[in-house]
């Protein structure tokens, strides 16, 4: 209504006049078209003749027939009749797999109301057995990353403008069609279908079109070494569960190497001191998770991993089948125990004794070597030596299963091909470069000159999920879907996995398989392509039935491996090996992959950054690890910012004084220092690839000669643990295996204990339990012999319990919100300390100090012994937090969610767990939402909760099976069995708080 038109210029009050003005302004300018009378007289369509009418009518009809949205048959449709399994409030689990450049990770995705909310391990998978790493859990936040590409983009002049993905692919097809020299730079893929789709594109353009590289170098190194030693490029299945003695030379198989989740599960299965316990010996530069868990650890100088391997080979050689092989003899000859000791910094006697131990365990030992931190510029050399050692010891075929490899057909290009491609790019010989989820500008050594080379390519097409450093250089960015949005398949360890989408793409993105199919000019239905063109080669029986089963199971076992005969080692491979013959002088750098960030491809995930590094407990940054002696002699102190430079390139990172690092060695993590990945990752840490070496024989990450100077002091490094000494308090108890054999209570510390019940307040009455009224007594046992400190439980807990990320400044202040943390203590000499880990969450004390002091009764003891927390009742005095001896209670210093969480990140929240507001305390609840869910189900079925049905998030997340949770009031349960072990102790029992968490003393097998 227009007041003006009706009432002329009259108004009743000032407000009314203002309102009139506003309404007039708001009215559309087209409200009163000029020729209004004509329109009224003749009708709106007066100018429409019959022909035009028919034209429009026809167009409308045909448009009504066209379906604008792409709607392939396999897409999810809204329920008209609700399927019985889809109950609102009841989660649905999908078995699928994460298939990426790291390999195939079988996962189980928990979805609520159509939204995936948690990724877990797939318990039924024959190889992974449900094992997960922190990396696997973190995927859920990558799906909901607000900075992910929402649609494709095209660069017109200098800026990007958004275009829809279908158009972008069409444009890419056009660009490729006209170009003569098209090249593809890509990361590895372990999806047979993706490879096949891509190969139909590549086939027309020659075998040299594609270059596949490995940014971290773990896999490429292993494939290259295997090819050199045995002729075929595969990654065999290392069976850590079958080896009595494991020697790792730089390979961080518990943290970052190849498939750490599987290796952790296998390794931990042998960490039971009551059975045949294995022994782990590690020689490495930077203390890795594996090194921290070693029974014996040899710190060696940076750049000498190969020397150590050769030195060990020499000791083992005599009396073996290769003793008289000339090439072998020649290769190892210079590395006598003394020479090796002089170069690596390990005692000659130690090398001899470890060789002696290995000799006793022929066929029952396993020597692994490699990793980012061992790349010395000659790809695969260290693998060749490790393979030699395993062949000498007869481990090949026994603890190394090669008949059904973990990964086969490693299609990595040689470093020379990569160097050639960069040369071609530099010289302007590449018309079109397609980047397949590769970010070479970020993750190739700066020395390669990729940053300049990419600018000389006329057309760069990036298939990416973020507008990362390389995509920013592209002319066309095609938005790729997250793996939880895409169909895919994967093949690893003889198991064929079908990856199904758990949600429709959140944005205008397409899966990489679809994109390649379209680029190759094929039908874009990737689902059909997987099912009809690929699955048949792995599945047996009727395709439809077998595919359906593989889909619901998540996998199909195509081939089964096992022990086999050993392969013939090609001694000739040793001839090209060049290892240092003298000890390093000056500061030598080794670059390594960190557990939380890995190769940095998911650098925009705040949860990864907030997860403290398992060894140093530093988060939101990489750092320069130096030895204490080096820091002292150079006058560096904690809080200094150092500049590390090599051949004119330099980066700045804060110092960290790393115990167990050789003097003269320096370590720095790769994967940090993104410039363009999103609001979280940009500018976090420094890009260590700046310092790495590059040549046509391979990248150099280890043994880089660097100069370091201090540029700033008073730098704030965020860390969750500033103190590393246990002060003899017996918090993480440990004992040598030999002591344990004599005394199962070995390692325990006698305290002058309070007598139970002698408190001011009466003890809790659980007599209801004794009467068998169907309640439970929840408790947890954590086996410190198995726990590796990998932090998968921490990130699983973050995901399950909606724990917010606080950021670097808040972590620096000591305000991280993690409900559980891994305490890490160092013990012994700073040159080579022993590291101890203990996961610490709310201990659910019987005499909980927090319960007494809360003025509002917000935290209470439940009849089942849980220490419950009523967020609504909490007024935030933080008295409970002060009075908690374990300091596991977390306070919401700021509002963490409302107005802070960017769409669509809220979908990652678990609807079963309250999101806590500002000003309240929160803490571990023993996953009470899971207990209650199971309680309801058990009740409706008239039974008790079964142990197998109920797992806390940390227990489920633990790849080492170190955490057991259950009813300790029931003598039948596993939890009770662990709880009753003599090895068990309760942390801070002397304070008389009586925790409901028992730790089992860590037993160290000192050989």
């Amino acid at each position, binding site marked *: 209504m227009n007041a003006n038109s009706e009432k002329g210029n009259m108004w009743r009050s000032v407000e009314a006049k203002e309102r009139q003005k506003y309404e007039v302004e708001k009215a559309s300018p087209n409200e009163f078209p000029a020729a209004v009378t004509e329109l009224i007289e003749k009708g709106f369509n007066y100018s429409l003749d019959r022909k035009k009418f028919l034209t429009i009518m026809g167009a409308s009809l045909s448009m009504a027939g066209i379906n604008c949205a792409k709607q392939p048959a396999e897409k999810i449709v809204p329920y008209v009749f609700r399927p019985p399994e889809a109950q609102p409030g009841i989660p649905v689990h999908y078995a699928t797999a994460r298939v990426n450049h790291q390999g195939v990770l079988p996962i189980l995705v928990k979805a609520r109301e159509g939204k995936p909310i948690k990724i877990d391990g797939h318990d039924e998978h024959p190889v992974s057995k449900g094992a997960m790493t922190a990396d696997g859990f973190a995927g859920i936040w990558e799906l909901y990353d607000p900075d992910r590409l929402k649609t494709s983009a095209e660069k017109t002049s200098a800026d990007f403008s958004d275009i829809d993905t279908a158009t972008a692919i069409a444009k890419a097809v056009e660009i490729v069609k006209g170009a003569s020299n098209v090249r593809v730079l890509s990361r590895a893929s372990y999806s047979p279908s993706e490879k096949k789709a891509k190969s139909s594109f590549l086939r027309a353009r020659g075998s040299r079109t594609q270059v596949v590289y490995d940014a971290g170098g773990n896999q490429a190194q292993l494939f290259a070494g295997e090819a050199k030693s045995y002729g075929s490029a595969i990654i065999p299945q290392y069976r850590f569960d079958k080896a009595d003695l494991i020697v790792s030379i730089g390979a961080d198989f518990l943290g970052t190497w190849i498939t750490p989740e599987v290796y952790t599960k296998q390794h931990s299965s042998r960490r039971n001191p009551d059975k045949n316990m294995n022994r782990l010996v590690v020689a490495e530069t930077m203390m890795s998770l594996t090194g921290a868990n070693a029974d014996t650890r040899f710190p060696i100088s940076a750049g000498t991993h190969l020397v150590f391997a050769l030195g060990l080979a020499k000791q083992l050689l005599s009396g073996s089948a290769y003793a008289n092989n000339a090439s072998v003899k020649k290769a190892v000859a210079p590395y006598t125990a003394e020479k090796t000791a002089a170069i690596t910094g390990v005692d000659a006697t130690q090398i001899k004794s470890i060789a002696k131990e290995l000799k006793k365990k022929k066929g029952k030992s396993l020597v692994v070597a490699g990793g980012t931190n061992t790349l010395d510029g000659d790809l695969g050399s260290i693998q060749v030596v490790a393979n030699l050692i395993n062949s000498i010891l007869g481990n090949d075929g026994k603890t190394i299963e090669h008949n059904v490899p973990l990964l086969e057909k490693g299609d990595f290009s040689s470093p020379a091909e990569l160097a050639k491609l960069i040369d071609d790019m530099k010289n302007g010989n590449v018309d079109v470069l397609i980047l397949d989820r590769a970010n070479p500008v970020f993750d190739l050594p700066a020395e390669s000159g990729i940053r300049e080379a990419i600018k000389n390519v006329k057309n760069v097409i990036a298939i990416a999920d973020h507008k990362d450093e390389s995509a920013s250089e592209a002319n066309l960015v095609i938005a790729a879907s997250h793996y939880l949005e895409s169909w895919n398949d994967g093949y690893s360890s003889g198991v064929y996995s079908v990856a199904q989408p758990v949600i429709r793409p959140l944005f205008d993105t397409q899966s990489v398989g679809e994109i390649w199919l379209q680029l190759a000019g094929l039908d874009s239905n990737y689902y059909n392509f997987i099912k009809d063109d690929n699955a048949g080669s792995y599945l047996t029986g009727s395709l439809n039935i077998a595919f359906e089963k593989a889909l619901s199971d998540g996998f199909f076992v195509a081939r089964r491996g096992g022990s086999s005969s050993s392969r013939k080692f090609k001694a000739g491979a040793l001839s090209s090996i060049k290892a240092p013959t003298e000890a390093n002088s000056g500061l030598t750098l080794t670059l390594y992959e960190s557990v939380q960030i890995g190769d940095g491809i998911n650098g925009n995930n705040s949860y990864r950054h907030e997860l403290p590094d398992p060894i140093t407990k530093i988060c939101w940054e990489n750092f320069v690890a130096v030895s204490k002696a080096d820091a002292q002699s150079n006058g560096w102190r904690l809080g200094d910012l150092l500049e590390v430079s090599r051949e004119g390139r330099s980066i700045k990172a804060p110092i960290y004084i790393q115990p167990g690092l050789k003097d003269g060695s320096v370590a720095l993590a790769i994967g940090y220092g993104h410039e363009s990945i999103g609001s979280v990752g940009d500018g976090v840490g420094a890009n260590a690839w700046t310092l790495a070496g590059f040549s046509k024989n391979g990248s150099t990450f280890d043994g880089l000669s660097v100069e370091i100077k201090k540029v700033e002091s008073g730098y704030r490094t965020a860390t969750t643990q500033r103190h590393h000494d246990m002060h003899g308090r017996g*918090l993480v108890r440990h004992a040598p295996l030999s002591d344990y054999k004599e005394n199962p209570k070995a390692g325990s510390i006698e305290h002058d204990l309070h007598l139970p019940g002698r408190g001011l307040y009466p003890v809790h009455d659980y007599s209801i339990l004794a009467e068998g009224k169907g309640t439970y007594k929840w408790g947890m046992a954590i086996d410190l012999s198995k726990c590796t400190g990998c932090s998968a439980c921490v990130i699983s807990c973050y995901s399950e319990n909606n724990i917010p990320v606080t950021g670097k400044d808040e972590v620096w202040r000591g305000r991280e919100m993690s409900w559980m943390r891994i305490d890490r203590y160092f013990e012994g000499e700073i040159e080579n300390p022993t590291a101890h880990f203990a996961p610490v969450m709310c201990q659910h004390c019987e005499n909980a100090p927090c319960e007494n*002091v809360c003025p509002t009764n917000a935290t209470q003891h439940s009849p089942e012994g849980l220490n419950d927390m*009523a967020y609504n009742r909490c*007024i*935030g005095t933080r008295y409970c937090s*002060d009075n908690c001896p*374990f300091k596991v209670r977390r306070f919401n*210093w700021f509002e963490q969610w409302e107005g802070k969480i960017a769409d669509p990140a809220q979908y990652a929240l678990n609807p079963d767990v309250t999101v806590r507001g*500002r000003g*309240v305390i929160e803490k571990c609840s023993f996953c009470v939402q899971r207990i209650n869910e199971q309680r309801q189900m058990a009740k409706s079925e008239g039974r008790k909760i079964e142990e197998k049905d109920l797992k806390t998030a940390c227990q489920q997340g633990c790849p080492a099976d170190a955490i057991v949770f259950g009813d300790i009031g029931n003598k039948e349960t596993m939890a009770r069995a662990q709880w009753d072990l003599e090895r068990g102790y309760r942390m801070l029992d002397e304070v008389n708080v009586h925790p409901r968490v028992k730790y089992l003393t860590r037993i160290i097998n000192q050989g």
Partner: protein
Amino acid sequence: MSTENVYSIGKPDGEIDNDILRPVESFPTKLWWIAFALATTAMLVMWGIIGYSFKVGLGILGINNPVAWGFYIINFVFWVGIGHAGTLISAILYLFRQRWRTSINRAAEAMTIFAVMTAALFPLIHLGRPWMVFFIFPYPNERGPIWTNFKSPLLWDVFAIGTYFSVSLVFWYMGLVPDIATMRDRLTNMEPKTKLGKFLLGIKKITVRIMAIGWVGSAKTWLHYEKMVMVLAALSTPLVLSVHSIVSMDFATSVIPGWHATIFPPYFVAGAIYSGFAMVMTIMIISREVFQLKSYITMKHLENMALVILLTGMMVSFAYTIEFVVAAYSGNGVEQYVFKNRMGILDHASPYAWSFWIMFTCNVVSPHFMWFKKLRTNITVLFIISIVVNIGMWFERYVIVVTSLHRDYLPSSWDLYIPTWADYGVLIGAFGWFFFWYLLFVRALPSIAIAEVKADEAGDKLAKGFGH
């Protein structure tokens, strides 16, 4: 300490009225305005910070996970402690017939009220959700079986502080009634020149008349009055001991090494009186200079207060010693570590040892200057020591709260506490808030109990008259 009358003012009652009511009946001086402006500014800064923290959260403070209590709780304990001297002077010294208290008790009681008002702010503003503070009061409600937790010392605090404030306020006000009546009577003599003056005087007259609650000053009234004061003094006396004992239980009942100590209640009470007397002394020295009340607040008063400071200072030192001895004797490594860490005698750095040594110097060393008559009768020395003692007592609470929390049981959770601008702002603002009220008080009400001074003076004359 003498129980004799320490005054011999030798002025007629009217003159005494004039002397004491001068600041109330004249216009404020420039100095007052400056002081008031400073106090108000500081106060407004504090309210600004509090408002901001209400809006965004306590994250603006420096507190963190191991050290979840910081400046706010330190300030709380500090200000509750300050208040104790007032009650001690007005109640216990009254019961013990310490007549020298007469001229300082009014100001000391006012100080108590304002100190408790300052202290009571902190438990409220340190809450994560202050708007939910009503959860802490045990009143019948419909929230089901959840009630307040009577085991929690924080709840005891609520009762202790609440009782303390209300009893102190009643006691103070009842003491004021005869003096307000004097003011009322004197106001009739005033002749305002302007219309506004007349209007304001009218308001003042009404207010004072209401506040004087019909005081007539008859012998019967006085008889009742004296009895009532006696009863109130008797009621207040246990509060002197109970309030800070209960505050100390916030710490003593916990399991945290450095807090978990049975000596805390007497130790805290002694500390409270120690700091309270130092604060009274600071204020008295300023008042007697500024308001020319040297003949009312004499050197004898200051000397007596100095002796109380010496005594309580030694009690506090004794408590410190006992804490260390108990830790050493306990055989409890964690307890011993905390005390070594306080002193900075570890093989590794103790980041807060400086605070302990500030506390030690201020609280243990400085009172011993009071042994010397020359020093304890020197205004400058007394003034400096009174301030030094309060700095020491603030740091005592800093040591207790921060050093105990920052390194407790699990070395993995040890961290640092680094206060922020907001902590400092509220620390200073609390003094602004306190002095805002105190400065208003000295302008609005007689800061010396006129009636009691007159009674003492009369008694003195009488004694002299009869004696000769």
